């Protein structure tokens, strides 16, 4: 084992390339923000100047050896400059359509499936099983959730059915990854295809060409007394779906389980060094099975939110439309940590929510915001803005001796 590197000479922290690069990244964001409320700068000069400053800071850092962070600042500057320019060119009147109080509510709506999915992916990958099958497990949750709510008469049955559906496919993925030692990416992709086929087939089989009948029991909203009638906060968070709050609650919960309990320690041990865990008597297979199944159930909750939560009791083929993959991206972007993943889910939710409002004045900007999660994740895995480091044994099947 080697010791951690120490900087050779001491410089004041503010002048270290790292700090400059971080400042550059923030400046890039400011470049964009300057054109949005509350500042609403109309002169294109402002975002351009700030953006160029960010790029300069990035270049400075790059030339001084802080490559990843430096490139991050450059990227942030370019994106901020571009978006800022776009925003200044639109009329400020439109901006109010884009930035209203219920945007917050919408961010939560878009972020919730991502939160569930990202937390699910994190649980699985922390135990050492890569889960690119989140999309499929989510889709299973969406369909069986609405089916359960329809036939069972209550959304509770729907949630249980969703958990069972997602959990079942997760079990399949677990068996393939853990016992058969299949390539976990192949297995995950198979889960996605299979879920697409199974949900589509049964949707057609069970509902024919009709839609889900209206009036299916759905997960209720939670009106928070005192807040629901307040200005701004009311429309923002006063009356959100129960599953949204469950998702929010799962963030600290998963943090405590993962980092503050013996169970979490064992899960992480399996993801970092399964043989070490095995030699102290931890059943690596059992831990991984449990983690993957929990992962599938969490993803399924995200799917159920789409169909019987916010979705109001509906289903369409391929309903998840790639949200499982954004969840995966959020998990990576959040560096396999609960709050990180949540933060990324909120950021991506914000980006999507914005994209749905932006066509009002610019379809190109809307597209930009649709792709922003993917671009950011691409940048994150490339290690440009702080490297995303997966658990050491992530994706590696464990072979008992």
């Amino acid at each position, binding site marked *: 084992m080697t010791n951690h590197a120490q900087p050779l000479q001491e410089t004041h922290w503010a002048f270290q390339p790292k700090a400059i690069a971080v400042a550059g990244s923030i400046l890039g964001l400011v470049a964009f923000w300057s054109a949005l409320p509350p500042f609403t700068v109309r002169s294109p000069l402002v975002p351009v100047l700030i953006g160029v400053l960010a790029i300069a800071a990035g270049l400075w850092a790059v030339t001084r050896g802080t490559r*990843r962070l430096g490139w991050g600042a450059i990227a942030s500057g370019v994106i901020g400059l571009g978006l800022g320019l776009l925003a200044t060119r639109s009329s400020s009147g439109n901006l109010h359509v884009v930035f209203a109080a219920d945007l917050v509510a919408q961010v939560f709506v878009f972020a919730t499936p991502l939160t569930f999915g990202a937390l699910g992916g994190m649980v699985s990958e922390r135990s050492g099983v890569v889960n*690119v099958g989140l999309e499929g497990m989510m889709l299973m949750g969406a369909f069986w959730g609405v089916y359960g709510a329809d036939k069972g008469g209550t959304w509770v049955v729907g949630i249980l059915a969703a958990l069972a559906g997602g959990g079942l496919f997760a079990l*399949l993925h677990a068996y*393939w990854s853990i016992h*058969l*030692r*299949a*390539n976990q*990416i*192949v*297995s995950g*992709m*198979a*889960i*996605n*295809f*299979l*879920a*697409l*086929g*199974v949900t*589509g*087939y*049964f949707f*057609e*089989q069970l509902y024919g*060409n009709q839609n889900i009948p209206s009036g299916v029991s759905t997960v209720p909203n939670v009106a928070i007394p005192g807040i629901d009638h307040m200005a701004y906060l009311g429309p923002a968070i006063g009356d959100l779906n129960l599953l949204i709050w469950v998702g929010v609650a799962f963030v600290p919960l998963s943090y405590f389980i993962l980092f503050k309990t013996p169970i979490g320690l064992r899960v992480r041990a399996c993801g970092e*060094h*399964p*043989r070490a865990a095995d030699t102290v008597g931890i059943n690596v297979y059992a831990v991984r099975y449990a983690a993957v199944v929990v992962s599938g159930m969490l993803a399924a909750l995200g799917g159920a939110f789409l169909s019987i939560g916010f979705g109001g009791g509906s289903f369409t*083929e391929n309903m998840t*439309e*790639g949200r499982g*993959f*954004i969840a*995966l*991206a959020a998990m*990576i972007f959040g560096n396999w940590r609960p709050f990180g993943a949540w933060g990324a889910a909120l950021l991506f939710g914000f980006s999507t929510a914005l994209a749905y409002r932006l066509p009002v004045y610019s*379809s*190109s900007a809307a*597209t930009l915001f*649709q*792709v922003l999660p*993917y*671009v950011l*994740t*691409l940048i994150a*895995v*490339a*290690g*440009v803005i702080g490297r995303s480091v997966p658990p*050491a*044994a992530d994706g*590696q*099947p*464990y*072979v008992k*001796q």
Partner: protein
Amino acid sequence: MSEQATPSANVPPEQEPSTDFVVRLGVAQRAGGLVVPVLTAVLAFLAGGIVVAATGHNPLTAYRGIWDGAGFNWIFHIPWNTNTVNLDAFNLSQTLLTTTTLILVGLAVAFPFRCGLFNIGGQGQYLVGLIVANWVGVSFASWPTLPHVLLGIGAAAFAGAAWAGIAGFLKATTGAHEVISTIMLNWIAIWGGQYLFGQGGPLQNTYNTAAPESGTVVQSAHIPVFWGNPVLQGLDYGIFVAIAALVVFWLILNRTTLGYEVRAVGFNPEAAAYGGINVRRKYIQAMAISGAFAGLAGALDMLGYLFQFGVLDVQASQIGFLGIAVALLGRNTAVGTGIAAFLFGGLLYGTTRGLNPSVFDPSLAGNLTSMIQGLIVLFVGADVFVLYIWNSRRKLRPRRRAEAAAA
């Protein structure tokens, strides 16, 4: 070995369970094993049939309908009627049209696989090729057919190569996992396509601005049809391009130094680097070649029979993902990919437009295809499982004999 693989002292190295999928595939390829892919397909169809039966349909009727829908029965109608007014001949020509695409998107997965890379970005690369081919096909209206088609194909292949090359470049320079980056690039391409063809998008058609659709490829950029009626969507010469791509794939891998390098990197990048191979460059090259195959697929589709693409088509398109199943079932070889593409081509067409709705509901059948696709990928991923089934079948006899001898 799962971590810090240290050859355990008393187990000879060849006894170590090799868990690396790429390596295992390689070993199976060397062994020339036909068993796993064939058994995989059989198992997948069997499982699909069980679902069909369980939901109250006759699986034999369903599969028969798909078989006929794919036009496969044409083969048994001797003397062959090549007039595609004949329904079977028409269906077969359509199956081959789909096969063309699948061969290329399959190669787009197979080639990087031999370099140890898993390209999930075939769909995105295909879309990029499609978009560029559409742009070329709509523009340059005054050009004669041959250069126009060649330009479209070339530009699309190049664009696909560049798109996939991003993932290769990131892998080579920063170590970003290609699975993640190609997934991200897929979605960027999907949203990009929706923007370009969408309302007010740069590539939206000029004659019906209410429709979020691309312009129509001009006649001079159409790849000529050689079987069937061009008006009824006949089979174009693109299939020969795909078959040529299979040959090129084989030649590159087995008869060029690039192929040697790609395979060396795929099996053991460290040994390859030690041998003097620039591993990073191979990652970029393998991804670029892969993207060229996928981009080519997009071009042949656009210039061969689609001619136009809309926002909804971008959202619905899944064919690039099928390349994963094709390549895996084909064991990442040229011949295997060709056969698997034909199988999936038939399945895809035979469960949708080719299927007689009175025999089996196409909306069910289309999903059956997704299921079979998933099952095939699943079973290929667990070749150990499939081999186990095969071996336990074979082991039964000797064991019985041994028991008999012992008794």
